[in-house]
């Protein structure tokens, strides 16, 4: 397949859709934005795409909790369609608000028999929204999105990004399974400790185990809080005027990996 087709899902309050489309296009994909109402009207359309991306923003204002309302729409009305999209070997990516949506919809981690999700993204320890750049390190090779990437430097911009599991056991299982694929900080994680090793501000929200991104058991559904689409052009780096010229930003690799997965 030459050019995979990407559906960038839009909803009321989505606001990183245009730059996410641009990032996928720069990586060689054909990307288009679609409102969740169009998908709900005819979910069969999903079949025409290889990659589904839920971009950043404030879906439905993040009212009640970040990503909750869009997550419930996916869970109540599109879950089966998305499971079969996934079962066909396709990719699903959630960035920032998209990560919150995927996690709270049950697409990233399976829902308990009681209907509860074993982990969440909640308020930053600091208790407020912050925009800052953070060092990131990958942990394992579970997810194709991070293939060949060891470290990245990307911005975060969120208020509710602290990754918390229901208990230590859930964390340990996810870590052991290699699903906690992206961590804040410079050093790769060792062991399965949920205590953060990286302090604020490099761990910007107090996430357990410094988790910045995770994937499902297959690795093909992935969510991350940092914004790779905000570091495509070298001039987006906060210190580009201090550094030797670069060809492209770290974030582009994530989108290129998604595209080359279908090469």
């Amino acid at each position, binding site marked *: 397949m030459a050019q995979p087709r990407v559906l960038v899902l839009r909803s009321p309050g989505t606001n990183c859709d*245009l*730059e996410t489309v641009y990032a996928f296009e720069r990586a060689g994909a054909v990307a288009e934005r679609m409102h969740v*109402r169009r998908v709900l009207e005819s979910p069969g359309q999903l079949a025409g795409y290889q990659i589904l991306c839920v971009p950043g923003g404030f879906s439905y204002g993040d*009212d009640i909790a970040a990503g909750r309302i869009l997550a419930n729409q996916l869970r109540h009305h599109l879950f089966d369609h998305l499971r079969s999209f996934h079962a066909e070997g396709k990719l699903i990516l959630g960035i920032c608000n998209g990560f919150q949506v995927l996690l709270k919809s049950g697409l990233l981690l399976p829902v308990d028999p009681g209907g509860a999700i*074993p982990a969440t993204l909640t308020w930053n320890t600091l208790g407020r929204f912050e925009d800052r750049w953070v060092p990131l390190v990958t942990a394992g090779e579970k997810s194709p999105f991070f293939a060949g990437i060891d470290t990245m430097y990307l911005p975060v*911009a969120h208020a509710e990004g602290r990754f918390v599991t229901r208990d230590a056991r859930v964390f340990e299982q996810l870590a052991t399974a290699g699903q906690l694929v992206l961590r804040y900080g410079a050093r790769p994680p060792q062991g399965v400790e949920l205590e953060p090793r990286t302090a604020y501000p490099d761990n910007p929200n107090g996430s357990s185990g410094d988790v910045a991104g995770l994937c499902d058991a297959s690795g093909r559904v992935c969510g991350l809080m940092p914004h790779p689409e905000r570091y495509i052009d070298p001039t987006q780096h906060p210190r580009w005027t201090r550094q030797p010229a670069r060809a492209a930003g770290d974030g582009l690799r994530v989108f290129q990996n998604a595209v080359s997965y279908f090469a």
Partner: protein
Amino acid sequence: MLWEIDIHPRSSEDSRAATALIQAAAELGFARGPRVAAATGYLVQGSLDRDQVERIAGELLVDSVVERSVLGQAGEDVLTDPESAGCDPSAEWQVVHVLPKPGVMDPVAQSTLAAIADMNLQADAVRTLRKYWIADLSDDELATLCNKALANDAIEQVVLGPLEFDRLELGSPYQFELQTVPLASLDDDGLRRLSREGQLYLSLVEMQTIQNHFRELGRDPTDAELETIAQTWSEHCSHKTLAGRIAYRGPDGERRFENMLKETIFAATHEIRGQLGDDDWCVSVFADNAGIVRFDEHNNVVFKVETHNHPSALEPYGGANTGVGGVIRDPLGTGMGAKPICNTDVFCFAPPETPVHAVPTGALHPKRVMRGVVSGVRDYGNRMGIPTVNGAIYFDPRYLGNPLVYCGNVGLIPRDKSSKEPQPGDYIVALGGRTGRDGIHGATFSSAELTHESESLSGGAVQIGNAITEKMLLDVVLAARDQGLYHAITDCGAGGFSSAVGEMGEKIGAEVWLDRAPLKYEGLSYTEIWISEAQERMVLAVGPDQWEAFAALSASEGVEATVIGRFVPTGRLQLKYGEDQVADLSMAFLHDGRPPVVRDAVYAPPAAAPLKITAEAAANPTETLTKILGSLNVASKHWVIRQYDHEVQGGSVIKPLVGAQNDGPSDAAVVRPVLSSHRGIAVSCGMNPHYGDFDTYHMACSAVDEAVRNCVAVGADPDRIAILDNFCWGNTDRTETLGSLVRAALACHDLAVALGTPFISGKDSLNNEFRYVDADGQSRSISIPPSLLISALGQIDDVARAVTMDLKEVGNRLYIVGETFEELGGSHFAAVHRLDGGEVPKVDPARAKRTFAKLHAAMTEGLVRSCHDLSEGGLAVALAEMAFAGGLGAAVELTNVPHAALADQHEAAVLLFAESNTRFLCEVAPEHAARFEELLSDVPLGNLGEVTALQDLQVTHDGHPVIVVDLERLKAAWQAPLDWN
């Protein structure tokens, strides 16, 4: 049935709401801190059984990893039981509920109602609340806490103890009754009283003009007619004072203006455009909702800055929130609609450390104001997905009770979509949010003075925004624009439909069917519908042939579009409610019938007094520098900046914080609005209210110079900078106050023309005073200092040539560009040493133009590694900031600073701390030094020293050390004051 679902944090989680309240209590200075538990609650009304309510709690409202829920029917004991809240049952707990007042926007409730419907459950209404369990406070302390920290009476109600109601008030149906106002029989006192008590805020002459108009018609006006005239003639909408006749006397002679703004600010732009001839890059100035200038071969850029001062004084969060929402609708309502690409926000507050007892009744504490304003700007801008890239905060005790909140937005618009024309026969379409009672009398209120009674009198003028509604509106407008589905668009701002329809239909005529406007709840009268300032609405002129497609597009995005009337070629404004006509005004009377405001203005600058530097003030420059860095105006604003998303849309090139640790203060922001292009815009501002105490002419020149030099410092082309003026002044009924404004406007004209920097839009806010009764029963008033904000929009051909202010490399040379004068009047040096008098900084226009051009030429050749403008705190502060931002030292000798003759014996202090205009500090690599000096040969230039590998600042004067200090200490002093939790 009314259910309540409370969401509590699990015991493993911190309670943010409780922590915030404990902190607020500490700031109120109580003897001992209270114990607090907190929850958020949802009141859900509908025929729902307990199982269904549990489902709503479990699947929608609670995040079981970190939260737990308590639910019951409203009033059930379990909902107020301290043990439900995890409180120690042995203590005595008071339960406090805080609810939005009926009719106040509650976005979360709206979303929750929709999400419940999405679960196939039926709820009729939802309202959110906050609730607290509080122990260890006396009754008095609890009352103070509720009043000063917990709730804002303008929009919220507090219920102590259990909630007593069993249903949510949804409004009751409106019974139509035509209201006329008996005007004909009123004498002058009666007219004055009607103007004041009816919140029309019109002058006696204006009231008499209206009275005569209706006498000629042989009838009394309806309430809707009177309100329409008051809105249209308000200061806020018509700028009648500054665009009126003014007889001015000042040190610069006598002038008679027919239209002061037109003959100063607009005239400057007109002269510049005339000089540019075919190279004119202005597109639309002072005509539309925002100014428009050329950007590239496909697009223009649009810029507007508004103020939202009075609403922010009463309800800081809501006022600032809707200030941002409102200014975004300006570019969106300019031409056929511009895409918002970045925000700039500037605030003025009283010092946050003002003692609680020093805050007069009716005013909020400045720290609470600042927290609320910053949160309001953050939540609106971030949710809209518009990066907030630039701003400033100024502190002065005179902003107590009357803070200033300037909100600005830049938009991008295709060149062929930059103008509009409604057509006769077009439908008048209301798009976006529904109409409610919010913001009634906002336009007339913002033209009046604030008093300690404003809170109760004008509570309805306070609005709460819903950013997501506006984001949805934005998405529809841009899609409809590109599909060509309407002829004209404007924002529904101050004055609501009244202003929007009145302005758009001015040249045609309009008929409006008020009963068709979609309402948030029942019970609004036709007049309330007409003048409501409910947020997130736009008005469009849609051709009958376009309507079907327009309606379908709006519906597909879930945005409400409603035909509420038609533009008809009658030259009249006719309002109907059902079959009844409720207003019939001639457009000519409405727009041209207002009697001209005629004012006298006098200005005499305070007598000049020399500033004598005391031995004590000169003794320790290191200490002085540290103090200035730690003063509120200079100190780091990172606590604010980091709360704003300054990178969404992906075009960020120069961020507000730059340098080795991303924490140095940038002079201006640079953004690429088109991701596939490297052409950029630069956004900056200039303001210095303290200089106005000396001479508003030089204050205005300094503000223009500062805005332009900030832009030039990051690499913007000085021949392509457009500026905006925002005058916030005290009560201009006083001839001296108006005189100080006219003098500033004259300065704006003179310097804009000399620099070739056109004003493209502006806005004024007058009557910024706070009146109150002090403890002794004396009536007092605080007037803000003259506060002129100049905002600049620059352009950069290739952003890869942009320059940041952080030092880059050891061994590079440091040059000062521009001349230093003995200008310490109004300076931070004078402030920290409590010295009065002195010369306020002035601008040499010809030299400023040359300096900007030559420095830009050097930047274009890539000769400048870093550049910082010299402003508050002068050379010393600029040098310190560049050094600690870059994490590199600097060694500098002051004798090489080009300067005029200095009278004061303490030369080093003058050279370090004078705030003379048009100066920069530049870092240049040794191999480029010769070329740099050659390019700047006809500009004052001094080679001061070099960048060092040491982590300190070393300044000598004539070889004698004057400053030796670690960068770490300077940075800590700079970061400490506003490093809030």
